[in-house]
């Protein structure tokens, strides 16, 4: 990592650390100051203890959720890329499929999850399928925009050199489309995590979402809070990494 990147990362980490400290402080003060009973809002320290006690459970459940989300995202990226490229090669296919894409663009998890469960049953594959579908369309839409954005002059240049359509794709359009891919990943990333957790609610399969539900039912407040905080933290980390990736990609464009 270059010197300036390192400084930037340190600075951001410090900001995050400071924000966390403030958050914990307010939390502690609020609970004690407002006299909130422990079964409603536990003290930060108790939650920390719960994390320490149950770290294995938390980590393993988080692992399930993350793998479902990650695999789902990977699948949808591959699918979306294939579809986007074929759309860009074949204009009429794109136009015919456009209405379908538009209709399904904002498929809510609530509609997709039960259907997926019918198909895939109760396992982790349902979560994966839900994530794939929910993140497919944002990535596709962004990729299509990216492939269409290729620089006119570059395309003409390659054409003059006698490049085949595939070469044009590889040398020019795909690099131009990469930033858009990362935008799509950013949009899809956080909803992927949430989609995976919501699927776990409905299927009862292992994962952080299920842990949250169960600890809620068992009234294990500290564990519940620990799981919730962990899920929020994971969502934030996913958002930051995809945003950072996007910004990195954007550095060499003038968008």
């Amino acid at each position, binding site marked *: 990592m270059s010197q300036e990147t390192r400084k930037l990362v340190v600075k951001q980490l410090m900001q995050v650390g400071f924000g966390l400290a403030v958050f914990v402080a307010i939390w502690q003060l609020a609970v004690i100051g407002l006299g909130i009973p422990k079964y409603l809002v536990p003290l930060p320290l108790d939650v920390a203890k719960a994390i320490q006690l149950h770290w294995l459970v938390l980590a393993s459940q988080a692992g399930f959720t993350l793998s479902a989300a990650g695999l789902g995202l990977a699948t949808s990226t591959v699918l979306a890329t294939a579809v986007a490229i074929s759309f860009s090669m074949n204009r009429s296919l794109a136009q015919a499929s456009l209405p379908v894409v538009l209709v399904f663009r904002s498929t809510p998890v609530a509609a997709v999850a*039960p*259907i997926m469960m019918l*198909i895939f049953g109760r396992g982790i594959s349902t979560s994966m399928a839900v994530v794939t579908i929910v993140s497919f369309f944002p990535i596709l839409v962004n990729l299509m925009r990216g492939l269409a954005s290729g620089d006119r002059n570059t395309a003409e240049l390659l054409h003059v050199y006698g490049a085949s359509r595939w070469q044009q794709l590889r040398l020019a359009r795909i690099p131009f489309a990469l930033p858009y891919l990362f935008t799509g990943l950013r949009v899809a990333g956080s909803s992927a995590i949430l989609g995976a*957790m*919501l699927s776990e609610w409905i299927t009862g399969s292992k994962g952080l979402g299920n842990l949250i539900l169960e600890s809620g039912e068992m009234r294990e407040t500290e564990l519940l809070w620990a799981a*919730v905080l962990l*899920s*929020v933290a994971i969502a934030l980390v996913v958002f930051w990494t995809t945003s950072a990736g996007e910004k990195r990609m954007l550095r060499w464009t003038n968008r």
Partner: protein
Amino acid sequence: MASALSLSTLQASLRPLATGVILLAVMEAAKRANVLPIFVPAPSAVLLEIWNSPRLVVSNLAPTAWKAASGYFIAAVVAITAASLAVSLRALRGPIYNIGVMINSVPIIATAPLLALWLGTGPQIQIAIAALTSQFPMLVGTMQGLQAADSRQRELMHVLSASRLQTLRYLLIPSALPYLFAGFKIAAPSAVLGAITAEWAGADQGVGAMMLYALFSYDTAKVWLSVLLTCLLAGAGFGFWAAIERMVVYWRHDVDLVD
């Protein structure tokens, strides 16, 4: 002019409607020919479900509908009040907007179990979550709307010696309407989806509960029915506001809310 408008709307919706009917007919034929996989039911089976037990449909649709509506209404009141405050007092503008953003970003995953702890099980959880998921578009829409009148129009009111109340009535409120409707239109499906998802965390009545029950008993037709009801309910909320918007905001058809 009103009749011409509805005629063209009818014509515009005819094509997708026809496509939908054809699609259903094809599905029906495919199922009869045993071509479709097991998890896709025949459309007739779904319709049969409704026919056999209309009461079931209604007794699940109704609770979800009123829970979503209550949450939506609460969110509307809070959003409008907060937005009005934000627009009148410059110091509050940033904080109120940011609170809206934060509430919007906290996922249902986190809020539902915590609310279950705090409020106890019952419809109040779904109402609360419907409110939380639908507040943001209404907040943004109202804030944008109240600031929509441009400086030249305000100058016009000044030149005409209009009182503050008159400026509100003749300028500020009409110019806010397109944005208000845009926000409220988007918020409606959010409230419905929030309520249904919240029902997954524990509810004994409602479309989400029906969905869970159908899933556990592997009742394919009922699952698809519940998905259908979800989409219908969300679409109805949106369509309701869109229809009113068509009538009230007759001078514009292109409002985009800026996030």
